[in-house]
């Protein structure tokens, strides 16, 4: 029974990470109807930023400042830098394509993905960069319920993820910016005619989504320790999957989608075999999509005549 709970904890933690990345992806899609394939690479940049912050303050084994301060700096800096990168991406590459056929920004996104990944390879080299989280956050500092261990890093991921998701949901539902985002998502031209500064709203959406990806990158680095130029691809794929399965454009949907994928992977690995994990999870997701074609929490799409 404890094995069940252990797998559940593992699944929820990784699921929370997937959800965070999926959130940013879903937000951008909701507002721009754009599948941002470069989103995973923003995760990768966030992970690198976190690594260099650790190095700056003395390296994992000899951190010069207290750990909570280090973590705060890592998260804030990653959010800021990656958010800025997202805004620059939007301004430079996506804005000219706002009125182009939907498939054109897809290729631009792919180009940006290539560009970011290989720039990281060029600047930082191919060797793995390791966070060595265990050096500054001791492995035994988690909680133990029976024989189920929950690491403190896992707890932090869960808590922070929850906080961010609630914050985002509040922002979208209660604040003026959120209202503007929903308006732009519903009908961009009408929103413009109503006096909403569409460029600013879209830039803010990109900033928020990318910042979330950056924070998720730091969390990924803390959890999984190794950082290299290619981690973005898998992260992006999981984000895309989670966002679509949960209902693309829906924030609770992205959260749910990520959790579903994380838990499914965990249980299939634990109870069946890791060899078939991907295959079975794909099969499950196809079934989910067939049963609910617009995703778990997505709105059923009406076709206008």
């Amino acid at each position, binding site marked *: 029974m404890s094995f069940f709970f252990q797998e559940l904890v593992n699944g929820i933690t990784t699921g929370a990470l997937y959800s965070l990345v999926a959130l940013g992806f879903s937000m951008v899609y909701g507002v721009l109807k754009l599948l941002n394939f470069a989103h995973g690479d923003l995760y990768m940049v966030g992970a690198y930023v976190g690594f260099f912050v650790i190095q700056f303050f003395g390296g994992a084994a000899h951190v010069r400042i207290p750990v909570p301060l280090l973590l705060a700096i890592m998260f804030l800096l990653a959010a800021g830098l990656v958010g800025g990168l997202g805004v620059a991406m939007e301004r430079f590459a996506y804005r000219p394509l706002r009125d182009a056929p939907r498939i054109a920004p897809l290729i631009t996104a792919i180009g940006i993905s290539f560009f970011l990944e290989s720039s990281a390879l060029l600047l930082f080299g*191919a060797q793995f960069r390791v966070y060595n989280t265990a050096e500054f956050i001791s492995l035994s500092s988690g909680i133990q319920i029976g024989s189920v*261990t929950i690491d403190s890093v896992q707890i932090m991921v869960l808590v922070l993820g929850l906080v961010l998701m609630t914050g985002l949901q509040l922002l979208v539902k209660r604040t003026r910016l959120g209202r503007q985002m929903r308006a732009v998502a519903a009908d961009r031209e009408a929103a413009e005619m109503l006096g909403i500064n569409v460029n600013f709203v879209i830039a803010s959406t990109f900033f928020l989504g990318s910042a979330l990806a950056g924070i998720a990158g730091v969390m990924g680095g803390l959890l999984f320790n*190794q950082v290299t130029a*290619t*981690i973005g691809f898998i992260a992006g794929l999981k984000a895309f999957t989670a966002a679509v399965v949960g209902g693309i454009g829906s924030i609770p949907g992205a959260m749910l989608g990520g959790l579903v994928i994380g838990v499914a992977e965990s*249980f299939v*690995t*634990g109870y069946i*075999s890791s060899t078939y994990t991907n295959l079975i999870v794909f099969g499950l997701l196809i079934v989910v999509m067939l049963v609910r074609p617009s995703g778990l929490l997505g709105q059923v799409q009406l076709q206008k005549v």
Partner: protein
Amino acid sequence: MEAYPVKGRLVLAAAAVGALAVAGCSSSSSSSTSSSASGSASAATKSCVASVGFEGPITGPVASLGAEQLHFAELAVSMDNAANHTQITLVQGDTQLQPAQATTVTQQFISNSAILAVVGPAGSQEVEAVGGPMGRAGMAFISGSATAVALTTGSYPTFFRVVSKDSVQGPQDANYIVNNLHPKALMIVDDQEAYSTGLVSAMLPIFQAAGIKVDHESVSQKVTDFSSLVAKITPDESVVVLPWQIAANAQQFGRDMAQEHKTAVIFGTDGLFSPGTFTISGSYVSSFGPDITAIPADASIAQAAQAKYGSFGTFGPPVFAATHVIDEAIASVCKAGQTPSRANVLAAIKQTNESTSILGQPISFDSHGDLNGGKFFLFKISSAGKYQLIPS
């Protein structure tokens, strides 16, 4: 271009035509090489000028290995150029560990008449894809990491390798585990690459014959989270075998094990040999290359590599050895007064007989291209994270 006056348009058209003509002339002359040595390479002296190709996964999923191999190849070329007064340049080709790309890169190298021999490719499937064209072109190629048994059964007459085969490593490691670690049950995880599955299929029969209960798992190299897999380790399973290529993944696996309080011992192969990355104390690592930092004769090489490229694992030194073999072959051809060509470099490589090398052993090849007397080295990691050689 309505804004341009007619004269401007004519001038631009002439310039465009001129540029194309120049580009066309330059590229249709002898094929392009990329220079990695600074300064003038066009000196028309009688010195030994040649090019050596390098095929490896420089970008892509195992870029960390390919980059390490490339660095050691470059180091070998620069050290040998200084020692032998040759002018060998290294031309790199990226295969991303994909046989189709290896074929394209090989064709590029074959078309480049300056390239006389090739180091690589890294993967056994790539060797199978390029073996035919290389043989037809008479170009020698030496791999520092292709370990499949089928490669040296005579199908590829120009293929050599400086590492031993799977058929030696798999059973040797499995027997060591059975005889020295006495597990009642074990978990063996492959990383869905040919190298890994080859070793696993060599090891499984030995475990089964010894009556050990085996849990055979498999994760892709792109997976970075092993917590679900680690949770599956039962208390009975006292050994976890990880014949992986990426040490960082194994390190994370070990960390997840520590976090979930699993006490099994990790037994890894070549890819895990990485003193900078894989440091789980109590683990065993079986490697086709020695720890060159522990070989006194290699001190200068190890220091140079450390200074220039940082920490390295086990994939670099064999490539150094392979490149060195080619460099020496070219140098010997030049010393004999001949112009180096693919044919005489191939013949010189076949005659290679180095009494010592970076791998701490003599290098010579048998008739099929295998390294004579290839050894495997078993290391145990101490509590300080240091690799200690277990004498055989």
